[in-house]
């Protein structure tokens, strides 16, 4: 029972310390939801389906259909098309970063030769295929007759020519398509959202989890650095000379940091629910254990890492390095599905990946306990391992 009071006394010290440092208090509880809002705004725009590519377009073919395509691109909500007079003008704009990619219509769209030239900067490599896809999409939707005629032109040699009647029918079909471009989008694909009710929320749920684990670890590192202060100010000497030792200090810090991480998570997910409608409250039963496990992991890892260090400077350097690397590899900065496969595999070595995937499973895929229990076990085990390491190293301070 006395041990419980000692641990509670150290939790009180941590709480009072934070409460009286208003700057730290604000940063601990205000920054996480703020950073979440920034991250979610940034990444919801770049990984969702509403990316508007800035496209510089030059029509050097000057045919009726090339003009139709340029006009269709200008009207399309999928791209932000800007007209350029020449191909070189397009190149200059792309090189200067004034456009994400460029399109030069150098021949009639229906011609067999490659009528389109896509220009992109290698530093924005993803822009080229994206621009290509957008142009094809506009071509299919706004100029289906051109697509049909182009297809016929390509097929005719292979089939040994068409009869006059077939050519007449094709021309009729093309004329019909031209009159009513939406009659047939000419594409292979139809889209279906797997969850109609949550369009756009997947990225938000992802980043709520990503920012939560990022800040839980960051704040835990700051809290764990107190161990260094206790060594340098003689508090550790005082306690090691008595009966208490450093055990209650380590345990008290651990429990406080778990609580702190949980409150941070509460604020982040409350913001996610309030601003973006992420259904966190509806999944509270699974959200809470996930949050506790993630917070315990952050607290334990932070205490373990700080305990390994001999000086505050060492601990600060190590914590900065670890926070950045784990966040980058674990998916707190860039969505994991955009990473190469090997990096996605490495990501499973970080608590971030486990926490993010667990939150995704609960909040986005409405998964049950079967989908997240493994993450709970991994996160809790990592946290406990760090806690044990911190206790062992604290005992060695006696010498």
């Amino acid at each position: 029972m006395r041990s419980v009071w000692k641990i509670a006394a150290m939790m009180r010290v941590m709480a009072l310390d934070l409460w009286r440092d208003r700057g730290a208090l604000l940063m601990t509880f205000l920054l996480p939801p703020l950073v979440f809002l920034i991250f979610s705004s940034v990444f919801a725009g770049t990984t969702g389906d509403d990316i508007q590519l800035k496209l510089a377009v030059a029509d050097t073919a000057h045919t009726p259909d090339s003009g139709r395509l340029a006009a269709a691109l200008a009207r399309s909500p999928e791209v932000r098309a800007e007209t350029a007079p020449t191909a070189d003008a397009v190149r200059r704009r792309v090189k200067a970063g004034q456009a994400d990619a460029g399109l030069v219509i150098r021949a009639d769209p229906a011609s067999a030769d490659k009528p389109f030239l896509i220009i992109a900067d290698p530093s924005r490599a993803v822009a080229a295929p994206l621009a290509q896809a957008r142009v094809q999409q506009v071509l299919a939707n706004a100029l289906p007759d051109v697509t049909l005629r182009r297809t016929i032109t390509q097929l005719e040699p292979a089939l040994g020519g068409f009869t006059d009647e077939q050519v007449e029918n094709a021309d009729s079909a093309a004329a019909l398509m031209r009159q009513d471009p939406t009659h047939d989008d000419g594409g292979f694909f139809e889209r279906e959202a797997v969850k109609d009710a949550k369009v756009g929320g997947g990225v938000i749920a992802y980043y709520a989890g990503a920012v939560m684990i990022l800040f839980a670890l960051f704040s835990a590192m700051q809290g764990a650095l107190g161990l260094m202060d206790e060594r340098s100010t003689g508090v550790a000497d005082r306690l090691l000379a008595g009966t208490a030792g450093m055990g209650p200090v380590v345990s008290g810090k651990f429990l406080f940091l778990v609580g702190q991480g949980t409150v941070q998570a509460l604020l982040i997910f409350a913001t996610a629910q309030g601003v973006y409608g992420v259904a966190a409250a509806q999944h509270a039963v699974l959200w809470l254990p996930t949050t506790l496990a993630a917070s315990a992991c952050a607290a334990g890892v932070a205490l373990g890492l700080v305990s390994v260090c001999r000086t505050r400077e060492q601990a600060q350097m190590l914590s900065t390095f670890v926070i950045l690397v784990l966040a980058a590899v674990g998916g707190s900065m860039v969505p994991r599905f955009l990473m190469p496969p090997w990096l996605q595999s490495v990501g499973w070595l970080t608590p971030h990946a486990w926490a993010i995937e667990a939150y995704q499973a609960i909040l986005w895929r409405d998964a049950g306990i079967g989908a997240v229990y493994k993450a709970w076990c991994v996160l809790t085990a990592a946290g406990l391992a760090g806690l044990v390491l911190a206790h062992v190293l604290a005992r060695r301070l006696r010498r």
Partner: protein
Amino acid sequence: MTAEPLSPEPIAALPIVTVSGAVHAYGGQPVLRGVDLALRPGEIYALLGPNGAGKTTLIRVLCGRIRPDGGAVLLNGRDPARVPAARAGLGLVPQEIALYPNLTVAENVETFAVLADVPRAGLPSAVARALALTRTTDRAHVPVKHLSGGYRRRANIAAAIVHEPSLLILDEPTVGVDLDAREAVDAVIRGLRDLGVAVLMTTHDLDQAGALADRVGFLREGELVLEGRPRALIAEAFGERMEIQVHLAEEVDAAGQDRLAAEGLEPTGRATVWTRLDADGYAAAGRLDQRLREAGLAPREIRVREPSLAHLFTLVADRKLAA
């Protein structure tokens, strides 16, 4: 808040702590070489010695943090390194302000009371008593970071005595504080001594040690080479001799130094101050003044005073005095 005395401790003849033949080495380098030490209740013991003499190691041995390679340590009859409960009777005041700066004095003292197993029911009275004894009651609700240096030092002591230890170890308790603050800390230490607490303190302030300590011990290269009451040690070392200090206006050349040495004067830490011991005191100083003037080494000032603990310390540290 009223001051209540600590629980009355019987003034026992038996020592609270004894160190017998403590030997310890780090990496083959001897740090303690057969140290014997005993402290009784109501006694202030000043442990003196230059840096690296083994003071910190000896304190760690007393706190049970180091089990010496040889010898024995008993705190209230038990080995503090083997029996953690023995450390319940020990309070340590580190040289640094070992407190949480954002917490008030009372909150700090209460925290360390809980960590030292003070029963919850007795917490308020224990905290009040510790604050009263260290004269910090009027700053009980002030965060430590807002205290003056003197109050911080006393709050540092309050956190170490809240559980009523029988042995209090203070590591440089007045380093970096002004004279008023030092006197206030000294008064607190005397008050604890009067309540029967055995106090062991390390200090480089030899004036403080001479004025405060009942006994002093000189530790040199891990050996306790001299131990006793300050006045008795000084009398034994210097007898009736007085210290004559010659203050020169400026540094002298090699020839001048030879002349000063011929007069039995020895250099001190300051190049313009030379010193010697003489049983004739003032008369000898007069004769010395005349001879130095004749030699062209007119002193700016000559002081005659009784030898101090600092003088003794210098002799011991420089191995000019047999143990």
